[in-house]
C-alpha cells in the first residue's frame, strides 16, 4: 500500500529544505542550502568555475557563503599566498563577510560560529559530514556543486538511506569516541556506508561530550557516508543556550516507524583502544595488537581530535613527563578559541615542558601539504582522520590513526603504546577539581 511511511530525521530535514513533505529514499530533489562553506584547498577551482564557467556576477546570498583559510595557514608557498589573496579579493568583490583568516580548522570554526540543529549545510570538504553531531544535516561536496550553490543556493541530491547505530554500555577509562568510530569503520569497511546516512543513538552517545560526538560524526565519511546524524539532546540545547542561541533552530526527531536500511547494535563496555593501520582507515586493529611499533612523529590536532577536551586528555598524560628521545610531537589546537583556552588552562605549558612543537590552529599534519611533513620510511601516529599512502608526506611513510590519548602515550614511549596505563580518572574531574 502506498501510504506515508515513517521518516528518518535526515529525510525530514531534507523535506524541510526542498519544501516537499513526501520525499522518499532514492528520490532526487533540489534542496535549498542554509550555508555553503569553502576553504583554501579548493578555492581556486571553485572561483574559476563560478566566475569563468558559469560567468556569474553575484552570489545567491553573500551572508550564507562562508570562506575559511585553514588548510595552509600561515601560507607556506607563493601559490598558497596567491590563493589566499584570491579568496580575499573574491570576498571583497562579492560582499562575503563570513571569511575567516586564521581562526582554525574549517569544521571547528563552523561548529563554533554557524552550526545549528535542523539546518542544512554543504561544504567543499569531505569532513563537512561532521555537523550531524548537532542534528544538522551536512554534506561534503566538490567544486562544481559548490560553484552551483554559490550561484543558485540550490543543489541536487539523492535522498540517502539511513543506517542506524545503537551504541549502548559505558565507555571504559582510557577509551574514547575515536576508538569507537574506528572500530565501527573497521567492521563495516571503508565503503560500508557509501551513500548512506549514519545515525547514532544510545546511552553511549548520550554520555559523550559534544566534542566526542563531533569525532564520531567527523569520521563517518571514512566509511563512505554522505552524512551523519545524532538527535540533539539537552547537552546540545544547553550549549546553544550558553552561546545565547535560544531559538532559530529546530530539533528534528525521527518518526517512530521511520525506515532504516540497516541497524547495528554495539555494546561499548568492553571496547579497548583502537588504531587504524596503513593504508586505509578500515585497516583497524586494537592497540595491544601492535603495541611497541617504533614511531618517528606524533600529532595531536585536526577537526577530528583537536578540541579542548582532546588537549585535556593529552595534558593528563604529558603532565610531568617528556616525549621519548628522537621523537617529534606536534600539537595544533583546532581553533583560536581552543588555543586560548588551552593557554588559560595551563595545557600549553604542559605540552611545551613535554617537548612539543605548538602550531597555530590549522589543518597541520593531517594533510601533508602544510607542516610536520614526514620523510621516507618514517612512521607517524596521529589523532587525525586519514592514513592514506603519502597523506602526510613521503609515499613510503606510514600513518597510524588513534585517539589523542593513544598518541600521547605513544609519544612518551617512542612507540605505539596503550594509554590505559596513563589514565586513572575521567578528564573532566581531573581538570575541574
Amino acid at each position, binding site marked *: *500500500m502506498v501510504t506515508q511511511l515513517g521518516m528518518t530525521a535526515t529525510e525530514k530535514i531534507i523535506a524541510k529544505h526542498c519544501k516537499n513533505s513526501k520525499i*522518499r529514499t532514492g528520490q532526487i*530533489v533540489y534542496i535549498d542550502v542554509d550555508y555553503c562553506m569553502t576553504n583554501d584547498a579548493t578555492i581556486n577551482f571553485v572561483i574559476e568555475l563560478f566566475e569563468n564557467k558559469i560567468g556569474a556576477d553575484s552570489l545567491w546570498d553573500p551572508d550564507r557563503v562562508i570562506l575559511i583559510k585553514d588548510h595552509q595557514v600561515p601560507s607556506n608557498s607563493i601559490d598558497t599566498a596567491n590563493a589566499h589573496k584570491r579568496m580575499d579579493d573574491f570576498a571583497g568583490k562579492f560582499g562575503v563577510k563570513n571569511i575567516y583568516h586564521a581562526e582554525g580548522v574549517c569544521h571547528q570554526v563552523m561548529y563554533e560560529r554557524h552550526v545549528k540543529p535542523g539546518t542544512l549545510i554543504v561544504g567543499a570538504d569531505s569532513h*563537512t559530514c561532521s555537523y550531524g553531531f548537532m542534528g544538522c544535516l551536512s554534506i561534503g561536496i566538490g567544486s*562544481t556543486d559548490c560553484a552551483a550553490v554559490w*550561484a543558485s543556493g540550490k543543489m541536487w541530491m539523492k535522498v540517502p538511506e539511513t543506517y542506524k547505530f545503537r551504541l549502548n554500555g559505558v565507555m571504559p577509562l582510557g577509551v574514547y569516541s575515536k576508538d569507537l568510530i574506528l572500530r565501527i569503520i573497521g567492521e563495516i569497511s571503508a565503503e560500508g556506508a557509501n551513500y548512506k546516512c549514519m545515525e547514532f543513538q544510545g546511552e553511549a552517545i548520550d554520555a559523550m561530550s559534544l566534542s566526542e560526538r563531533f569525532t564520531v560524526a567527523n569520521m563517518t*565519511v571514512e566509511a563512505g557516508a554522505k552524512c551523519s546524524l545524532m538527535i540533539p539532546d539537552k547537552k546540545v540545547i544547553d550549549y546553544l543556550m550558553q552561546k545565547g542561541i535560544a531559538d532559530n533552530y529546530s530539533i528534528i526527531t525521527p518518526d517512530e516507524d521511520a525506515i532504516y536500511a540497516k541497524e547495528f547494535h554495539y555494546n561499548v563496555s568492553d571496547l579497548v583502544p583502537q588504531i587504524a593501520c596503513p593504508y586505509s582507515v578500515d585497516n583497524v586493529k586494537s592497540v595491544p595488537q601492535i603495541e611497541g611499533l617504533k614511531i618517528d612523529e606524533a600529532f595531536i590536532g585536526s577537526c577530528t581530535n583537536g578540541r579542548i577536551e582532546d588537549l585535556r586528555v593529552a595534558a593528563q598524560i604529558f603532565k610531568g613527563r617528556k616525549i621519548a628521545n628522537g621523537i617529534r610531537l606536534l600539537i595544533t589546537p583546532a581553533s583560536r578559541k581552543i588555543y586560548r583556552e588551552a593557554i588559560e588552562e595551563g595545557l600549553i605549558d604542559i605540552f611545551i615542558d613535554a617537548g612539543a612543537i605548538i602550531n597555530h590552529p590549522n589543518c597541520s599534519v593531517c*594533510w*601533508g601539504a602544510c607542516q610536520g611533513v614526514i620523510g621516507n620510511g618514517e612512521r607517524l601516529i596521529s589523532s587525525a582522520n586519514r592514513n592514506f599512502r603519502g597523506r602526510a608526506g613521503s609515499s613510503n611513510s606510514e600513518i597510524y590513526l588513534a585517539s589523542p590519548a593513544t598518541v600521547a602515550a605513544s609519544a612518551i614511549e617512542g612507540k605505539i603504546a596503550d594509554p590505559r596505563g596513563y589514565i586513572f580518572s575521567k578528564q573532566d574531574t581531573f581538570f575541574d577539581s
Partner: protein
Amino acid sequence: MINKENNQIKPTLNKDNIIAGKVWRFGDNIDTDQIIPSQYLIYDSISRMTKHAFEPLDPDFSTRVKPGDIIVGGKNFGCGSSREQAPAVIKQLGINLIIAGSFARIFFRNGINTGMFLIECEKAYKISRDDKLVISMANGIIVNRTRDEEYNIMPIPEFFKEIINSGGLLEFMKKAQKIDHSFKIDSDNNASTKVRSYSKKSKKALSDVKKIAVLPGDGIGPEIMEQAVKIIKTISETTNMRFELVTGDVGGVAIDKYGNPLPENTIKICKDSDAILFGAVGGPKWDFLKGADRPERGILQLRKEFALFANIRPVQFYPSLEKVTPVKIREDVSREGKPNFVLIRELTGGLYFGKHETITGRAKDIHAIDVMEYSESEIDRIARVAFMLAMERDKRVTSVDKANVLDCSRLWRDVVNRVSGEYPEIQVEHMYIDNCAMKIISSPQDFDVILTENLFGDILSDEGALIAGSLGLLPSASIGEKVALYEPIHGSAPDIAGLGTANPVGMILSVAMMLRYSFGMNKEASIIDQAVVKTLEEGFRTQDLYTADSSDKKVSTHEFADKVIGFINQS
C-alpha cells in the same frame, strides 16, 4: 603533458559502442590523495596539477597515458577527500571513462558533475592492464576482447545520463532552463528528466505552425470539439504559437459518408499533423453493425495505425466538486494531499488484442476463448512511459497486475522491476488488480502513477472518473512512436447530443495535455488547467455536475467554455 581534445572519447550514453583505449589498472580503495596529492591542490589551474596525477602510485603515469585510455579501479574508487581536482586531472589527461567495482560517493558525484563517464561493474577486477575493451551501453555490458569475456554494468539512472550528456552539471543546469540568466533555479521544479515530447515533430521552434488533426466524431463529439477549438484559438492569441486545424471524419459520421469508420483521407490528415484531437464516436444509429464495421473501429484503428501503445489518464479530485463525487475522501487528508494521480494503461496489447473465438461446434456447451498475450518489449516501453512521467511527479509508481494467477502478469512484474533499476529514485510498488480496485476508492490519495495493462486499465480508469465526480471531467492522451492522440475519456453520449448540456471539461483538459506533451507548452497547459479549476470553484456547472445547491450556477456547454476562456485571458 597530454591534452589532445580531439582524441578524447566523448561519452554519449545513447551511442551503442565505445571502444576503449589502453586500460590502466588500479586496485581497491584508491583514494583521492593518490589521484592528486594534497600539496598540488593549491595550484591555480588544473593543467598545472595534471603531471602529478597518480604520482604516489606511478610517478610516470601522466607522461605515458594517452587520450582515450581508460582507468579501471577496484572497489571504493576515489574515496577520501572531496577534492574535485581528482576527476578534473583525469579528465584533463584525456580520460573520460572510468570503470570500477564501486565508486566512493563524492568522487562519483564530482565525476558526473564534471561530465565524466563512470561505470560501476562488479566484475571490474577481472580486467587487466592493456586489455582491449568495448563498452556497449545499449546492452549494458563490457566486452573484454583480450579475454573473450563479458561483464554486466550497473544501469546509469536517467538523471545522471542527462547531466553527463549535457557535458556536466553546469551545462545541464543551463540547458535544462531551470535557470534564468542569473543562474537561479526555479524552486518549484524538482530535479527530473523532462517527459519527452511524444510528437516527433515537436522539436520545432515555438513560433512554428503546429498542425492539429481535429476529429469531432459522433454524438456530443462535435459540440465539445467546438469548445476545444475556441480554447486553442485563445491560446494562439495570447502566445506566438500558430495552429493550423484540419478537420477529418471519423466514426459513424464517416460510415455514413464513406462506409468506413476511418477513411484514408482522415488517416492522411492525421499523418500530416503534429497531434490529433479526438472527440467521441458511436451511437444507436450504428448499433446494428457488426464488430469490424462499427464506429468504435475508428478509434481502435487509429490506435493501431499510430501505434498508440500508452494511454495516460490524469485523475484529479476537485475540492469544489466534493458533493458530486461519490468517493469519500478521509478528513485527515490535506488539501494538497487530495487525490491526484495518473493512470498509465497499456493500449495495444493484452486481452483486447489477442485472439477472440467462439466455438459453437459442440452441441450443448458453447466455448468462447480470448487470448491474453504480452511481449517483453511491449511491457518495457509502457513501463518507461510510466517511469518518465513519475520522474516529473512524486516519483512513485504502482504497477498493477494479477501475478498470483497470470503468466502475463508475472512477466509484467519482472520487466517492470528490470526497468525500475534504471530509475533508482522512483519507488515502485506492485499491487494486485483486485486490491487496487478497492484501494483506488478507499484511499485514492495514496497513488501517484498507476501503471497497468489494457483490461485492468480500462476498469480502473472508470473508477478514477468517480473520484473526479463525472466521466465528463477526464482527459486522456494516447501516445506512441508517432503522432499522439488526445481525447476525453467519455463516449459520444447520444442521449444528450445537440442539447448543449455536455460537459466540455474532459475535452478542454485534453487540449491542455496536447500542449504539454506534444508541444512542450507547459505554461499554457497549466493556465488551462487552472482556468478550469477556477470555473468550477466559481460554481459554474454543466448538467452532469449540477446540484440543487444554491452556489451552483447551471450553464451550457458553450457558456462553461466561455467562462474558462475568461479565466485564461485573465492569467
